[in-house]
């Protein structure tokens, strides 16, 4: 068992089927699960589907959890698998055109600045969303959750070397895609100073 006292107690309560324990487990991890799903899919509706799916899997399989790994690591594996499952089913959407047009209705510098910031964020997220799924999930675990290479390797069931190599490849791809963007943003930052 690698669980600490409180975690072990929570798991055991869930394994006994105590409703409050399920709720406590949900409260503990809902933001992590949702954040990973949202950053992976870049779509709120898909993120909700993945988060729901992950918690259903967690609740239905907690009886089999033996505590050989940390609960958090196990949860990361569940959400990663849900993301990869979802990726195979999803259809691509173009959700941002409407939002962009909506923003154009506003005028004034603050609205323009907000629009630029949102556009920048969106371009970064879109660039991440365009990565191959195995690289994208590594990026999300690294930058959304701040996991170490070792923790990512554990969540994905691969070696640290594989994690490093996927991150490296993802950085190179993002570097190319965002080079122009970073330059433009650097320019706008100079103007603000």
């Amino acid at each position, binding site marked *: 068992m690698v669980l600490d006292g409180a975690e072990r107690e929570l798991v055991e309560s869930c394994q006994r089927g105590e409703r409050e324990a399920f709720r406590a487990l*949900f409260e503990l991890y809902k933001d992590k699960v*949702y*954040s990973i799903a949202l950053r992976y899919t870049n779509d709120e509706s898909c993120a*909700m589907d993945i988060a729901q799916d992950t918690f259903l899997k967690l609740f239905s399989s907690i009886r*089999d959890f033996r505590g050989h790994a940390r609960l958090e690591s196990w949860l990361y*594996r569940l959400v990663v698998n849900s993301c*990869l499952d979802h990726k195979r089913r999803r259809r691509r959407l173009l959700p941002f055109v409407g939002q962009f047009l909506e923003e154009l209705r506003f005028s004034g510098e603050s609205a323009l600045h907000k629009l630029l910031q949102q556009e920048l964020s969106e371009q970064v997220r879109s660039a991440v969303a365009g990565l191959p799924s195995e690289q994208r999930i590594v990026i999300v675990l690294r930058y959304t*959750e701040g996991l170490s290479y070792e923790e990512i390797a554990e969540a994905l*069931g691969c070696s640290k070397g594989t994690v490093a190599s996927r991150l490296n490849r993802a950085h190179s791809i993002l570097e190319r895609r965002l080079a122009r963007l970073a330059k433009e943003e650097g320019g706008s930052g100079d103007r603000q100073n």
Partner: protein
Amino acid sequence: MIDRIEVELSRHLKPMVAPSYLWARVQTAPRAKARKPRWLLWPAAAAVAATTALCYFNVQSDSTSSLAKAAFRELASGSEALDFRSSDPVEIRAWIEAHTGLDIPLASAHSVHLIGVTLLRNSPCMVCVSYRIGGEKGELLVARGGSGGPKHPLIQRTSFRGATVTSWAAAGQIYAIATSMESPHSACILCHLDPKRSSTPTPAG
């Protein structure tokens, strides 16, 4: 530039707060298929038992044969697309049971590296467990059917284009392993930690 990208990624991919209605969605979502009480199946099972017995030997041979072909196709395709990726036998067993009702008693053997599961067919269910032993890939396909006993005498073994496909039936499920390993018996450790000592015999050669 990489440092800059790392900064941008941390800034634009920061964690979010889950919407408050997520819990309501989790609570109202349809649960994974619960196992039906077996006693409900008894009358139906009794009604079809005679018919099943008559057809049994012919069907078993056909089923294992088609499963063996499917196993070979999976191995030959070299596909990496999986429905569930894990190296943990407990997780894989639980996932398969939750999604198909099939029970595959995978063991934890150090020499076996499990890769994941592909759901090949929904009705009737057929799953494929992908694994590696010593760098060689193997595919274990399982479907419902075959004999009801725990023992599984060899039904058929065929070799084709450097791959060996072994198929058998046990405990109401049919199995087929396709591998390019020289000794297909090495795949026995998927379910048997020590085939020599196991109470459930491995497919005999």
